[in-house]
Structures are given as C-alpha cells and as structure tokens.
C-alpha cells in the first residue's frame, strides 16, 4: 500500500519482550508468515524494560514508527511488567502526539508466544499505516543523518 509511487520504505523499530512477543515473532517466522522487512525487532527482557528515552531516541534518529509488544495483561512473565509499560506508554504517546508525532506512529500491542499470526498481521497493518503517513519529520535530528 504505497503512496505516490515513491519508494518510501519506513523505518520501524519494534521492541518485543523475550517471553511472549519475541517468541510470537519467532513463531510467525516458523510458520513462514510474511510481513515487510521494514520492521526491525529489538529484544528486551520485558516490555517494562523499554525506557521512553529509547523511543524518543528512535524518533530522533529517524524512525518513522515505533511499536512495543508485550505479554497480554495478566500474563506477564514478571507478573506486572506490562502494566508499567502500558501506563508509561500512554503518557509518552500522548506527549509525542502533542509534539506532532501522530498517534498512529506509536503503538502498544499484546502478542503471546502462541500468536504468530497476530504478530504478522499487526506488523503488516502497522507498516501500512506508517507508510501512509510518510516520513517522520518531527523530532528527527538532521545532524544524525549521514
């Protein structure tokens, strides 16, 4: 779903918790479920490990979208980590929206280790959404671009 026939390929950073979502991403791979190569996954022990600074850094360095995936509420390997992540991201995303980073560029999604199909579907949909929005020009630090 590309706009204006330009070859715009978004840069998307996905933070995935080791226990559920990273395993879900692996399952998507094992089942050969396709999603665009624009998504690059960073493995973290838990969604609560993701510091808002990491997400700001991604946008500063030119990311067009950031998605955080964790275990379903109630299923966190560390019991409560995803609840912290959910609260932190709610605040961060509303601040980013205020700064001009559209809400659609940021997302929190719960993907269990058994939900390979959900992982692929989520990524396909997220890449489409971000592609439609185009390049992220807000917050990007042009000095970082080579």
């Amino acid at each position, binding site marked *: 779903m590309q706009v204006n026939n330009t070859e715009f390929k978004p*840069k998307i*950073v996905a933070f995935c918790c*080791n*226990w*559920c979502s*990273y*395993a879900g*991403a*692996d399952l*998507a*791979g*094992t089942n*050969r*479920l*396709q*999603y*665009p*190569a624009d998504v*690059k*996954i*960073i*493995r*973290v*022990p*838990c969604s*609560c*490990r*993701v*510091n*808002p*600074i*990491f997400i700001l*850094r*991604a946008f500063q*360095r*030119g*990311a067009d979208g950031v998605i955080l995936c964790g*275990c379903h509420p*109630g*299923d*966190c*390997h*560390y*019991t*409560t*980590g995803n609840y*912290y992540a959910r609260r*932190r991201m709610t605040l961060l995303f509303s601040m980013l929206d205020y700064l001009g980073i559209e809400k659609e560029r940021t997302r929190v999604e719960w993907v*269990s*280790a*058994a*939900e390979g199909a959900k992982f*692929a579907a989520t990524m396909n949909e997220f890449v489409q959404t971000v592609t439609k929005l185009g390049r992220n020009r807000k917050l990007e630090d042009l000095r970082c671009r*080579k």
Partner: protein
Amino acid sequence: MQRIGVFVCHCGTNIAGTVDVKAVAEALKSEPGVVFSTEYQYMCSEAGQNIIKNAIREHQLTGVVICSCSPRMHEATFRKTASAAGLNPYMVEIANIREQVSWIHKDMKAGTEKAIILGRAAIAKVSLNAPLIPGESPVVKRALVIGGGIAGIQTALDIADAGFEVDIVEKEPTIGGKMTQLDKTFPTLDCAACILTPKMVDCAQNEKIRIYSYSEVSEVKGFVGNFTVTIKKKARYVDELKCTGCGECTEKCPQKKVPNAFNLGLDNRRAIYIPFAQAVPKVATIDADYCNMLKNGKCGVCAKVCGAGAIDYKQKDSFIEERYGAIVVATGFNPIKLDAYEEYGYKQSKDVITSLELERLMNAAGPNGGTLLRPSDKTHPHTIVFVQCVGSRCDDGKGKSYCSKICCMYTAKHAMLIREKYPDTEVYVFYIDVRTPGKNFDEFYRRAVEEYGVHYIKGMVGKVAPQPDGKLLVQGSDLLADEQLRVEADLVVLAAAIEPDKTARSLGTMLTASMDTNDFFTEAHPKLRPVESPTAGIFLSGVCQGPKDIPETVSQAGAAASKVIGLLAKDKLTCNPCVAHSDEMLCNGCSACEKVCPYGAITYSDKEFRGPNRTTLIRRVASVNDAVCQGCGACTVACPSGAMDLKGFSNSQIMAEVDAICK
C-alpha cells in the same frame, strides 16, 4: 576497543535461500570493532562451532556476533562454544536472521539489507557488552505436583522413586482424576480401576509422597529451585487423621438427593460422601451445599454415628506454606459443556449422553451396576448411535479448533464392548475421519468394524430429534453413499471435545507459565523440550499441555519427572547474571525502584561517601539482591536519576541497537 568476530550461518538454505550470506559477512567486515567475519553452512554444527572457537583464539576476539536462528534456539549453544574457547559466554550476541528475516521475507535484496542492519545492531550491542559471571542459588530438594490424576500420580511416583520428597495437590477429595471414571481402556481393554488403583495406593503408602487432597494452590512466589507455595486446604468438615473411611456416615446421612458428581449426576449420593470405594485418601467429605447441619444447624447424624469422632462441623479452610525446588503442572482436562449444541438434543433428552457418561453407565461400580440401560426409562437400548467430533475440529466458534485425539479410539472401544456384551444391539458411528495413530490402535479399530460389525458411517449428524415414543430420530448424511440417513436410535452418545481444566488459566497466571489461546500450557520447545514450560522450574505433565491418551500421558509424566529429578539432583543452580544493578554514586535513595520491583529484590542501606573538603556524607542508596532479581528491568525505567541499569540489556546497549537500526 573490542575485537569482534562475525559469523554468518547459512542454515542450509533456510537462511541462504533468501539472504545473500556472503554479502552480509562482507558488509559487516567494515563495521567498527570487527576484526574477523565469515560465513558457514551450519554454525551450530561441530565444524561450525570449531570455526568460532578457532577464530576466538586466533584473533583474540573479545566479542562474538552470530547471525543465525533465534537466540531462543541456540543462544545457549553459542555461549557454551565461546566459553569453551575461553571467552566470557555473555560476550556473545545473536542477530536473528532466520525466524525474523529469511523465513518471513521472499525478496533477496530486502532480506539481505535487513540482515545487515540486524547484524550491525548486534555488533553495536556487543561492543558495549561486559563479561558477566553468574551467581549461584541453592535448590530446595522437594517437588510439587499440581493435579492428582494419572499424570500427576505417575510423575510423583517417579520423583519419589529417585529419593526426592514430592507433594501432590488435588482439588477433589481423592486422587485418581478422570481415569477413575473410565470403565475399560483402549487398545487392550484393561479395566481402568485395576491398573490405576494400585498406583493410587502406592502414592498413599510411599513415605516420600504427601497428598493434599481437597486442596488448591492459592499463591506461588519465588523462582526455579526456590518456590514458596501457599496451599489452601478446603474445609471437608471431617478430620482426615481420625476418619477411618468405614462409610457408616455415608449410609446414615438423611440427605439423599445430592447429584453424584463422580457418576456425572446419573444417580444421587448423600451429603457426606466418599467418591468411590477405592478413594485415596479414603476419607469422607461433607458437601457444604447440601448438608443440613452446615446449612441450618439441624441434623448432626454423621457426628452421632461416627465411631472415630472425626466429624468437625467447625472446620475452616486452612492455608499451608511449603517450599519447593520444582513444580509440575498436571491439571488435566474436562469434556466441554454441550449447551451450545442444541441440534444434538443433549439438554432435551436424557438418552443423549456424553461418552464419559457412557463410561459410568457401563461401569460395574456405576449407577446401574454395569448393565447398560437407557437413563430415561431404564430399558435396554437396541440401537445406539455415536456422534464423533462434537466440538472438536470445529471452526464455528462453538467448539474447539483442535482434534481431541482420544475420541476415535474410545468410541471404537465403546462400540466393541457393547457389541460383545449385547450382540442384539446395532451400533452406528458417524465420523469425519477415523484417526488411529498409535501402537495397535488401527488394528483395534479394524476389529471393531470387521469382527464386531460396528456400522461406521462417514458423515456428520445434522439433528437428533426426540420422538414421542421415546426414540431418538438421528438425521445424518452418508458421504460415501451420498445419501441422507435416518436412524431411530434408543441411545445417542456424543464424543464431546476435551478442554483444559478451568483452573489452568488462573494457575498459569500464578506460575507465570505461558499458555496458548486454548488454555493449554505451552512447552519450552514443541519438539525438543516438550515437558518443560518456558518458565524455569515449571514442568508439564499430561493433558494440561495438549490432548493425550493414557499411554502418552504416562510417558510424558515420566519425562517430566526425569527433568525434575535432574533439577533436584543439583545442589546449586546457576543464576541469570543479567540482573539489575545500581550505581551508588548516582542513586538518590528515592525508593522509586523498590516500589516497582515485583520480587522485593531491592533494599536500601545507609552508606558512607566521601564529601567535599575531607568530610564524610551518609547517603541512603539502593542495592540489588542478585539471587532474587529476575532481570525484568522495571526498576531501570522507574529510576529518575539513571542509577539503575540492567546487565546484558543496559540503556547504552539498547540505545546503540536503536541507533544502528535507524541509521
């Protein structure tokens, strides 16, 4: 400056098919810090591992990046390889270019580009890795088995046999589980009770095994090697130590109209009961919902007739705290509720029954003493129709998408037993497919068809309509003859799908053990680690992991036991060194980290620091207990001063990965 080696794996054509591995190895050669880069067919093979080992020694590598399959697959393998070559195992990072690149992308160019970027991110991360040395924690040499069915019993017996203490927690008043309700077992037609009850007695008599019957797990804390579990012993209003199991009370209790759960409500029992004759422990239990004494204080007959003085109407739920090194989940299954299947008339007619109800009807200890009679009018059924896959392999939202696995075989068994005992009875089986993988299973099914003359009809039943004369009109299709069939049946037996026990979901949450969408527990690896949960120290036995028959359950139970024994045989466990640590110079003692820690691993203490002009300052600073910290990282984000960081996943490492990806 690190000296990094990069190793790109082809994984046969799994990776090399969609990723130009040579180009990846070449591109990563020029990354800062990289002194060596190569590719090889199978990095995880012995030859591949030797390439890594030799390169570490030859090039004095201080960090290793392996571009291969998921770290969940081979991280441990490659850490061992590094360790064998004298490199700290935590100086290894893996770029996942199989599950997250080659298997999901078809375009060679895009795949290769992505693999290079992921390789760069791993190089950026490993340049900031620090050698980590894991600590050790002691192992409590006792195991807990949750669920006392055949899976739990076999696991407990095997663990006890190796000399370790094991506790069984069973929510029903007796151990034995579903197998106690079965009549015969396929494919040998052994009597279920004859092979199960000796094992139940073994459990009771084994001095290493303790049975908590009528109990549930209410809280689980801790981690592998050191779990603290709270067990809730539900009030049974009978003193277990005094009760002799004589059964006097169960005969004298005036409350006779209690549906007998053991016989699935096909007959009644008293308010005080022993589920069945061979119950273990053989102790009476009062059903508080029906007991007149507990409900309105009027009766007390059981207390009067009890010679042992075991009745205690004032008994309350009690809670016991125990410590264990390992926990085995063996929570089993239940047939699904058939309320959604109105077309089969399960609710309308007493003569439409489930297969488990048929087991009770045919059992010598069942409601009819083993004579097969229709539940409605107690007459002998002359035509019986079996309907397969009721709720199994079903995508309509009413049932389960999976195959329940056992139904084909037990239906063949039922059909055979009925034809043998009552040759005047015609038996019809409506099926989608007959699935008989297993030793002597297909031979068994063919005997039912060829020797016993059971009519197998490929096709589904559309409707079961109760008739005014008490018969059941079964309308179905015969796909092979391409015609509609109408059978006037006396009894219809539904092979209901099986589903995990309702307690499994809440238990999974307590244990932080992952489950699939059907509430079956997920295994650590579907092929290579089938009896372990991804959560360390939690093991899986029986149907709680997926539908299974008895032989499979018993072998899985033994496998789970051997894994537990392997764990308990160790005196110390290596801890995960990727734990939080606090920089005391930055910590301002605010307690934010302590509040978010789910394990209570953070404590505060006053420490002396050197102040300006040779003064001494006393400051309150956080410190992390390495043995308790599980490394989630919640504290690192909560810390306002940036003092808290996580080893192995530090702020600077993750930031370096972000930078590399966004470059």
